[in-house]
């Protein structure tokens, strides 16, 4: 099976396409692929536990690794203790590890 890295830079509050990206990530995972959704820039806004999109991310987290860029979190005043269950913070080094993971396809959104 394949390995995918979806880098989501946008929030679902700014673009309806983002929910489609979540569905794509979840769909790939449900077909047995290894998927990491890496939230960065305004993409992390959805990860706050009180956001209306948090439930969707939490559901994704059951079959997908969901990470939130700690730099983007800090820039937006979101503490790691505010993240919805299933979303973990990660630094740029982790993103580099994923990008250079053998055979993993990266998609920038």
């Amino acid at each position: 099976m394949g390995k995918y890295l979806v880098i989501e830079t946008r929030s679902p509050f700014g673009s309806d396409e983002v929910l489609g990206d979540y569905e794509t990530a979840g769909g790939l995972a449900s077909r047995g692929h290894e998927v990491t959704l890496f939230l960065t820039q305004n993409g992390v806004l959805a990860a706050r536990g009180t956001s209306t999109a948090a439930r969707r991310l939490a559901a994704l987290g059951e079959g997908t690794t969901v990470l939130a860029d700690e730099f983007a979190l800090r820039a937006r005043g979101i503490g790691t203790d505010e993240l919805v269950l299933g979303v973990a913070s990660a630094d740029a080094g982790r993103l580099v590890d994923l990008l250079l993971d053998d055979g993993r396809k990266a998609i920038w959104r």
Partner: protein
Amino acid sequence: MPKTLTVLLMDPPYEDERTTTAFRITDAALGKGHNVRVFAYEGAVSLTMADQAPHPNPVKGTSVDDERHPTTKDWASALFGSADGRLEWINCGLCVDERGAGNWIEGPRRGGPADFTAWVKSSDATLVIPTH
């Protein structure tokens, strides 16, 4: 073991957070000992223009020193300075000519799409960061 990451950028400086993110990824990859190749396409060829200058803010009455505006050419220079030869940077030649953006800091060289293709083929991974 060091690997090679190719990154394609398209955004001009001071337009979008994508530029900052791309620089952060490049910095992190270099920090881990990897090789990074940056292909600057379209507006991104202006990221390394040597003529960039920070400015004061006359509305606030603040000076250049007060403002401490970062410039993308300084960020790129810092990356070259820390890369120890592991950073390559190509500016798309036709894009440069269109914009009259040929005066660069030390480090980048002129190239074209064929160079990007060669880099993709010989890199461990390629990240394309498009404009939206």
